[in-house]
């Protein structure tokens, strides 16, 4: 004790590590702050020279430019709403792309491990080709070369089975739309979901008490389907209607229309990201050693239980974190939409900039939007990683 006191007395403060650390950090912060202040000062001087002031009031002005897809929107709406339409479009392409790319990635990843030599090589070829060509080149290929050059005009559209039509103006698909009685049926959906969740939680607790493995999700799913089916028959008329695209005079009517830009962006992003996901899935499957499966079988678990309780948890622990970063990459890469004319947030943002000249504000808005998506994803990921972390002895 006395030794400690004397030593702290004998060391002068300029040689005391604790003091030096504080001084060092303060100095570092001061330098960083000075740099930022210098930049901000330049910004102010430059803006004043142009007669501009930073303010977000322009978001309340009328946008005046058209956005051809996404939420209902008029050129008379305000800039702020136009930007929101862009954000929703980014989320739309990202979510659909994520579903599609996961399917592609999983199938190809499993194919790479197939015992079939040809399938294995084919999957490997796909991965190697797609990963080593720039995404933008692929997007341009899909958009300019395939969609706008190779596909026929609306009149000679390529029809695929299931009333799917590929044309130069986009892709037309059959689609389900809510009919008049949908409102009534919606109550059955809500009620069914509530009951299903309750059953799931109840079953889960029950199984946990009994310390038995099981599939509560099957119970919940069956009950949900039963309630929805009952609702379907009890509501007058069909709550959902199938509309099929039909070629009218100049264009297709009915069904779902995916624009040229949207389709090529969706295909390009999914095909590209799918190659990376395939490698992740492959690594995840390889990460679970054969011994695990054999041991689980030896203990007497059923095949389904082996997959769900032994293999998948271990594989997913390896797969999920890089998978999430691929999803995030897909979302960020969707900003290339601007180069093929899809109205995502980057495209709307630059259009607003071109109309208003508000550089700083628009860049802040664009970056903040992407950062929010990234941060939300990484928060979720951190939560997941903490839950799934190996509990070691």
């Amino acid at each position, binding site marked *: 004790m006395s030794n400690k006191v004397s030593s702290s007395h004998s060391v002068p403060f300029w040689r005391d590590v604790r003091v030096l*650390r504080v001084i*060092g*950090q*303060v100095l*570092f*912060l001061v330098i*960083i702050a000075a740099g930022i202040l210098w*930049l901000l000062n*330049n*910004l102010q*001087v*430059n*803006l004043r*020279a142009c007669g501009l002031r930073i303010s977000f009031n322009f978001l309340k002005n009328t946008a005046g430019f058209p956005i051809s897809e996404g939420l209902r929107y008029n050129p008379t709406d305000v800039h702020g709403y136009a930007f929101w339409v862009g954000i929703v479009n980014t989320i739309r392409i990202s979510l659909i792309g994520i579903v599609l790319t996961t399917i592609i990635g999983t199938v190809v990843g499993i194919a790479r491990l*197939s*015992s*079939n*030599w*040809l*399938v294995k090589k*084919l999957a490997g070829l796909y991965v*190697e*080709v797609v*990963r*080593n*060509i*720039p*995404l*933008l*080149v*692929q997007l*341009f*290929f899909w958009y*300019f*070369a395939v969609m706008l*050059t*190779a596909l026929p005009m609306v009149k000679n559209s390529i029809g695929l089975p299931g009333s799917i039509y590929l044309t130069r103006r986009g892709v037309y698909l059959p689609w389900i739309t809510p009919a008049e009685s949908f409102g009534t049926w919606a109550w059955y959906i809500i009620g069914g979901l509530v009951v299903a969740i309750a059953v799931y939680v109840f079953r889960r607790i029950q199984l946990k008490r009994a310390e038995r493995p099981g599939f509560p999700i099957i119970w919940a799913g069956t009950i949900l389907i039963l309630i929805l089916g009952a609702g379907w028959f009890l509501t007058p008329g069909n709550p959902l209607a199938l509309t099929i695209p039909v070629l009218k005079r100049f264009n297709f009517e009915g069904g779902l229309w995916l624009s040229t830009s949207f389709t090529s962006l969706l295909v390009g992003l999914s095909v590209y990201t799918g190659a990376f996901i395939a490698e992740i899935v492959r690594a995840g499957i390889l990460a679970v050693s054969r011994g695990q499966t054999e041991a689980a079988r030896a203990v007497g678990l059923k095949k389904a239980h082996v997959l769900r309780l032994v293999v998948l948890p271990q594989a997913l622990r390896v797969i999920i974190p890089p998978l999430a970063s691929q999803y995030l990459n897909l979302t*960020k*890469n969707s*900003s*290339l939409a*601007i*180069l093929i004319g899809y109205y995502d947030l*980057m495209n709307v943002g*630059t259009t607003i*900039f071109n109309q208003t000249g508000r*550089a*700083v504000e628009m*860049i802040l808005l*664009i*970056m903040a939007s*992407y*950062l929010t998506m*990234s*941060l939300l994803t*990484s928060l979720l990921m951190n939560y997941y990683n903490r839950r799934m972390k190996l509990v070691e002895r």
Partner: protein
Amino acid sequence: MDENQLAGYADKNQLPPPSERIPAIRWLKQNLFSSWFNAILTIVSTALIMTIVFGLLRWALEARWEVIPANLKLLLVGTYPVEYLWRVWAVVYLVAFLLGFSSGAHGGLMRRVSTTAALVSVVLAVLPFPWGTRGWLLGIAVAAAAGFGLGYLGKGIRWCKRLEIASWILSFPISLIFLNGVGGILPVIKGRTMWGFMLNLIGAVVGIGLSFPVGVLLALGRRSKLRAIRLVCTAYIEIIRGVPLISLLFMASIMLQLLLPASVRPDLLIRAMLTITAFSAAYMAENVRGGLQAIPQGQYEAAYAVGLNKALTTILIILPQALRIVIPAIVGQFIALFMDTTLFGFIAILELLNITRSIMGNLEWRGTIFELYVFIGVVFWILCYSMSYVSRRIEKTLGVGER
């Protein structure tokens, strides 16, 4: 040493089981028709391959490939003046010479890389290029051979290795200055935002080269015990990694001049290079951090025990090991960055992808869109695939993941 490790050593010394020659029929049965499901898969994928191959062949035979040779100069070096093309060749020779030198001094993987480069240049020289171009192409092989000879001679000499590293590092600024020109000595070449494929290469090399020191500092900062430094570095890395490159390029094109005093007005290409460096630095930092994390605590403790202070420990003990581990990751990042340079077109820089628009806009070459995109795809694919192949080889020779 635990049992696993012992087992690993034993495995390495064991001979592999004698290989069995499998008759073709049995091979087919084992690999393609082992079950009815596999048989169906085989048939379906054969059909798929046939369709693709025949479709491609039919198209490739009808395609107007003459668009590529007719515009080759424009695609590769853009508007670089013909009378100064020798400067581009000189830079290529410099790189070939250095590659040869390194391969002479080290052998191994380097030798295979430089031999391949020389062989490719000889093969290209056989193709029906103009005679002048053929001569230049052959020169690559000659430069590589000269470098190889010198490197081989200087193998044992101690300062030779330092000279090699120094010349590699110096070759970057020298090449850039040589291409651009210096006031008074070499005429400065105008229009450097229109250099075609050269800009993709320059962008990737500058991006990786400049971001390397920044990235190392950021990585060290993120692992620092000083909270303020850690916070700032982490914030920088996460912000940059959280936004798409295209938004940063957008910022560089419209906002960077607002952040600088009126006297400083960097041109578009400089701004693009700064952006790609700032972007790449964040990813570099994460790669390097991965390497730093792989260094066991014992290395630090041993270094402190020997009496090294923190700075010396980092520089002499930790970084050399950490950086060695991350070489494959850095090559991977280089490939990604190289592919990302196609985004330069967004800010009106005429790199390879963007310069094709001027060709497609030409009436004479209307409808050659497939040919051009396929050409670009093939060029990138060959370069990126061979780089990732080299990176995988490096990984093997470094023994990353096994020790």
